[in-house]
């Protein structure tokens, strides 16, 4: 119950493209612009690397919000990675709503490397949105007491598990 008294600090993950948003986040930092401390930045070679599966699994793992930050339209270093990312984010949003989560917990933004101030602003805005939505009702998988089902805790094999017992029997799947 002590937890309830500490103010809710949303766990937000930002998938940032190395060529723009990641540099913008850096710029925000070096310019001493404040953005939410609980923002976890993950550097990607391009937002085109983002996949619906990773977006969903990130939520399944218990984040409260997820930001995908790519280059301005027309400025992708790989031509259309940011456009693909946008389509996948839209698709993943529909999944979230079907699942019963608010689509606003996932958002795509577009920035250039010079837009440090905008990064800080948008990240803060996202944090506000998530604060108003409250923590993810999913909680964490551990809290939910679920058997881990992706990757293998025992051997580190990232391949999907057939069944935990298969590992226990050491049949190598």
């Amino acid at each position, binding site marked *: 119950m002590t937890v309830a008294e500490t103010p809710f600090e949303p766990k937000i993950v930002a998938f940032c493209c190395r060529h723009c948003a990641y540099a913008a986040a850096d710029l925000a930092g070096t310019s001493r612009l404040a953005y939410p401390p609980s923002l976890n930045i993950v550097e990607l070679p391009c937002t085109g690397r983002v996949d619906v*599966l990773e977006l969903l699994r990130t939520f*399944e793992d218990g984040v409260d919000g997820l930001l995908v930050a790519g280059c301005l339209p027309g400025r992708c270093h790989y031509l259309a990675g940011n456009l693909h990312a946008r389509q996948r984010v839209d698709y993943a949003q529909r999944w979230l709503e079907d699942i019963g989560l608010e689509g606003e917990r996932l958002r795509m933004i577009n920035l250039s490397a010079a837009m440090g101030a905008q990064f800080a602003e948008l990240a803060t805005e996202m944090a506000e949105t998530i604060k108003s939505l409250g923590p993810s009702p999913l*909680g964490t998988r551990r809290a939910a007491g679920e058997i881990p*089902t992706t990757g293998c805790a025992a051997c580190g094999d990232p391949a999907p598990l057939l069944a935990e017992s298969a590992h226990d029997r050491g049949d190598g799947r």
Partner: protein
Amino acid sequence: MIVAKQKPLSELTAMLDGYRNVLAVGCGTCVTVCFAGGVKEVGILASALRMARRLDGQPMSVAETTVQRQCEAEYIAPLAEGLDEFDAILSLGCGVGVQTLAERFPDKRVLPALDTTFMGLPTEQGVWEERCQGCGHCVLDITGGICPVSRCAKQLMNGPCGGSQGGMCEVDSDTPCAWQLIWERLDRQGLADRLLEIQPPRDWSTSRDGGPRRIVRDDLRLPPPEDV
């Protein structure tokens, strides 16, 4: 290829109501290339189901695996091990995959996660179209390589009907009229005369109307054990 699409999540959660431990099985062939039931789609669906059930306060474990070809017993045989702990198999294979699993594991509940829709091809990235209904008596030789059974909404053999307009079918203005395509193609090849021939009524007994179909190749069957 066989083209399928995933059932809506709400239909699947209703179907899986009461199950606690499910094995989602993908297929590495047709439904992988149409992005309906490969490794990634199994991952997405399993994750979505787990989350949806967690939110409902009825957590369900969904394990994931994908076999290379769900429609052949040999490929699914290894699933037998460890299957006891699951109360159901959720197949992301086509309807054939689902039934292969059901036949191989008679005591297991096997549920379909996909709506198997047609035999077709991708016409552009992200778009698939029907091309064949497996009618059992192919007429593509007569119709210039364009199938009137799967592509004409009325399965006409002496088309086009009176609804063909501007090259499009009366059913949907985004769908080309199969008979317009047939005519254009035969005309380009100088074979338009062929369309003047009256095609007689078809024998649909080769199609699904004759009941489940079966092909037997004696040259390929295993010799009876007493002869070996």
